[in-house]
């Protein structure tokens, strides 16, 4: 299994530790703003996900969650700190469907890239459309899909990449409560069948409590880890389980605290 290291500083013993999982250690990242000033997005963030773990990341809007995922997927490099991760697939916040391909072709993109012949790739992707409630829309162009349908196609594309690590950026944000619940169950089952390491960014704390093994709460910009909540709740979980509800409350409190701290700073 290839675990790769990415760093601005000296090498570290992280890769071995990452083995199939994710290690983010003391990572900071700032953007250059429109007037050339530094816009710090992440400050000294450390997050670990062991192999097969699902770690949820919650935090106020603009705190650097998307930045964190792009760092793990090596679309950006950290200004300082180390990151190690097995090959990771990213489901971006905006669906990024390619307008020149139809829905199946978009979903099957990873298979095409991996070298599968076109018809086989389409077949495999098409078979899953029914399960995601997209039956009949295989040949629709992205512009002919609703927002939630687009998101599900993008989700499917990410899953079909077959990568060991999945970075999901608000994967169900455009779905109604019922469809979202179905998709969460579907994901949980899929991960049970074929365990993968998942870094899940979500703004729905309930979703985090339902799916995660661990919750990482980030403060407002620049994002710092303000809390890490373990979710030792047996599966399958339901939104009405007491443990889930309790975790949700704890997470909300941490989130509110970190948001307030930010407000105090501002």
């Amino acid at each position, binding site marked *: 299994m290839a675990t790769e290291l990415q760093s601005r500083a000296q090498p570290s013993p992280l890769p071995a530790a990452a083995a199939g999982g994710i290690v983010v250690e003391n990572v900071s990242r700032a953007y250059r703003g429109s007037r050339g000033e530094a816009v710090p997005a992440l400050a000294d963030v450390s997050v670990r996900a062991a192999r097969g773990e699902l770690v949820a990341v919650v935090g106020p809007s603009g705190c650097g969650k998307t930045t964190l995922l792009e760092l793990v*997927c090596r679309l950006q490099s950290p200004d300082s700190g180390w990151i190690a991760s097995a090959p*990771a697939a990213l489901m*971006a916040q*905006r669906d990024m469907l390619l307008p020149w391909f139809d829905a199946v072709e978009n979903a099957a*993109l990873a298979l095409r*890239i991996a070298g599968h012949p076109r018809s086989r790739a389409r077949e495999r992707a098409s078979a899953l459309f029914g399960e995601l409630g997209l039956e009949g829309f295989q040949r629709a162009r992205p512009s002919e899909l609703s927002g939630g349908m687009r998101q599900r196609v993008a989700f499917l594309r990410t899953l079909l990449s077959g990568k060991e690590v999945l970075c999901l950026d608000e994967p169900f944000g455009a779905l109604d409560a019922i469809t979202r619940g179905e998709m969460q169950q579907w994901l949980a089952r899929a991960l049970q069948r074929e365990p993968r390491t998942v870094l899940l960014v979500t703004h729905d704390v309930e979703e985090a409590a339902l799916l995660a093994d661990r919750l990482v709460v980030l403060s407002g910009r620049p994002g710092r880890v303000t809390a890490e909540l373990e979710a030792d709740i047996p599966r399958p979980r339901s939104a009405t389980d007491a443990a889930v509800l309790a975790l949700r409350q704890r997470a909300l409190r941490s989130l509110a605290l970190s948001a307030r701290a930010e407000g105090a700073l501002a």
Partner: protein
Amino acid sequence: MIRARAARALPPTLLLCALLGAWELYVQASQTSAFVLPAPHSVAAALWDNAGLLAGNLAPTAIEVGLGIAAALVLGFVLAVGVHLSPLLRRAVYPLAVGSQAVPIAVIAPLLVFWWGFGIVPKLAVIVLICFFPVLVTTVDGLMASDPEQLKLLRTLDASRWQAFRFAELPAALPAAISGARIALTIAVIGAYIAESQTATTSGHPGLGREINADLTALQTPRAYAAAFVLFAFAIACFYSLALAERWLAPWAAHPRERGAGA
């Protein structure tokens, strides 16, 4: 359908008629010499009288345009892809391609004839030289303008450079490339004229370009205008046939507004 088409052809036809009318009036009123500006009616007469000759001369010109533009599109496109994929090529070849556009055909024509003689080859070379450039520029610009977010996506899916090109950059650049092809196709017609003017020909039906030049030196101005009119119409036909082909080449770019909104 047919009615709709007829309705579409109406405005340009009307405008053309108006322009021709104004031109006729101007010639009559100003008494301009027919050798500087023949009246439309005498051009029309020349067109009618020489229909066979003009048609015969259109054939070789059309063949030159067809072969030349095909080669130019391929060259322009391949160069664009090369320039896009290789920064080295971009820096080395692109400036030379730009400069090549400023070299008068008259300067290199003797060389082309020296190399390839009196046949169609030097003419095609001229057309290619003139026409590859718009395709090159628009395609390079189109490729550079593709969405960086899409490229990020492809990187996370481990797409190779070539796959990123094929799945994202190429389709995104196609509309721009088609713009370039449109320009190239249109100027291919004048390119054929220049090619015929500047390189040697054996006789027979030497092409419309040669015919125009011969008519101009022989002071057969109305016939030269008639031949120019044939080129004019031919260019329009080429241009609009590409517009048709485009819907098939890049349907996602085929002007969504014409499909969309309320449909």
